[in-house]
């Protein structure tokens, strides 16, 4: 379980999160909605300890991460897989080397064992046969799928998705949605998905949470959100809020 309690975070003069409180229950897919620049991606980076909050506490499986050393944090991060917005594949490595990277870093698996695992994970994201390609040879959607294969290589308990479908055509986006659901169904992972695309959010969410003005404005199931009377949420879901 992940709990964020009264999180504040500023960049220079700009206050992005102003007392955000949110909890993520084990096994669920929580979609965090909000306008661009509202601090959604910051939220994911705070959970992973890639950024530090100005105040507030983040508790992961009972451990307060602000009390953990950088070394301890590196160990804790093995519980997580993160899909970055642009994929963030290492462009000096091939597809297979990218997926193998966490296995080489953190396990004592043999070369053959790693190769088998890479093939298995690539098949899971429907990217078989791309092992020897470099990230620059892949399309945006393919890059995200390989990045997902890399994120799940260590079979994490939590997967964090940063705008997984943004910039993709509807068919590729649908494919990514299917993969997100498959991760939950097959491995029981807990997922936090950050997006501003309401349609895709409905497709995958067990629960939705809306960030507005640095706080969680409301949260609930897809049905509950659809029925809400809060004017901003109504505007957002009926696509009247611009970027």
């Amino acid at each position, binding site marked *: 379980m992940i709990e964020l309690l009264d999180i504040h975070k500023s960049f220079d003069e700009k206050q992005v999160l102003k007392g955000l409180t949110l909890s993520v229950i084990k096994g669920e897919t929580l979609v965090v909605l909000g306008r661009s620049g509202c601090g959604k991606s910051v939220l994911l980076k705070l959970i992973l300890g890639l950024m530090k909050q100005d105040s507030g506490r983040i508790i992961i499986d009972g451990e307060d991460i602000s009390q953990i050393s950088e070394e301890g944090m590196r160990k804790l*991060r093995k519980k997580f897989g993160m899909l*970055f917005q642009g994929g*963030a594949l290492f462009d000096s490595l091939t597809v297979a080397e990218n997926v193998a990277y966490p296995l080489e870093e953190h396990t004592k698996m043999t070369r053959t064992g790693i190769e088998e695992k890479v093939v298995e994970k690539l098949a899971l994201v429907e990217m078989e046969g791309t092992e020897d390609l470099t990230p620059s040879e892949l399309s945006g959607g393919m890059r995200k799928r390989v990045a997902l294969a890399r994120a799940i290589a260590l079979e994490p308990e939590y997967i964090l998705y940063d705008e997984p479908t943004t910039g993709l055509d509807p068919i590729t986006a649908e494919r990514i949605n299917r993969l997100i659901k498959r991760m939950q169904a097959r491995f029981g992972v807990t997922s936090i998905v950050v997006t501003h695309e309401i349609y895709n959010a409905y497709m995958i969410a067990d629960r939705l949470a809306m960030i507005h003005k640095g706080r969680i404005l409301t949260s609930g199931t897809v049905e509950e959100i659809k029925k809400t009377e809060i004017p901003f949420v109504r505007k957002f879901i009926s696509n009247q809020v611009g970027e």
Partner: protein
Amino acid sequence: MKEEGVFFRFLKTLYGLGELFMKSLRYGVKKPLYLRDILEQMDSIGVNSLPIVFLTTLFTGMVLALQSGVVMARFGAKMYVGTLVSTSMIREMGPVLVALMVAGRVGAGITAEIGSMKVTEQIDALRALGTNPIKKLVAPRVMATVIMLPILTVIGDIVGILGGWLISLWSLGITTSIYRHTVLDVVTMDDILTGVIKPIVFGFIISLVGCYMGLTTSGGTKGVGSSTTKSVVVSSISILIVDFFLGKLLLAFLAYT
């Protein structure tokens, strides 16, 4: 965004560089050592810089001999061209020129590579995958530069001295045997020490500035461009300033007469 003063930014950069230096030393010796990364960097920083170092120092040695030969001939000291070429190359020209060329080639490359990784979230991805980016990216580059720069400098010194020999032989009419004597008889251990200590320090400057500018890149591809420029400017100027003070320090320390 609040505008920071020049002095404040200078202090911040200096602090950041010091911190990066300490961390790269601390993490560099801890396991895993990333030996493959170190060897790859030694190849790209050292071996691939050989042509540029060769050309720079060859022509510098040749021009030193050519110009000093003309002036020294006026005092009847033309035969000491070898002494002038060798001491200048070993003590000053070799270390500084090689460092400047490497700062342009390698420093810029390090910043561009790490900067691109930063703006495309690859550094965050490394951390998310449980890797320490300072250990994985900075330490191997610092280590490789600090090892390879003195080697490149020694090669550059030799090439420069050989360049001087070519001109002495062809253009100044000095025989090989006189040139060899004037080179070998005057070069002391202090010259060699000065010539090797300097590139070690310059190696730290180039690699740390390169990595620091890369890691602090922001603002997309435009940011990568400006960080790369800054990296070359800062390391080149630092090399020239540090060269003076280090030269003075070494002179005092080695009690040079």
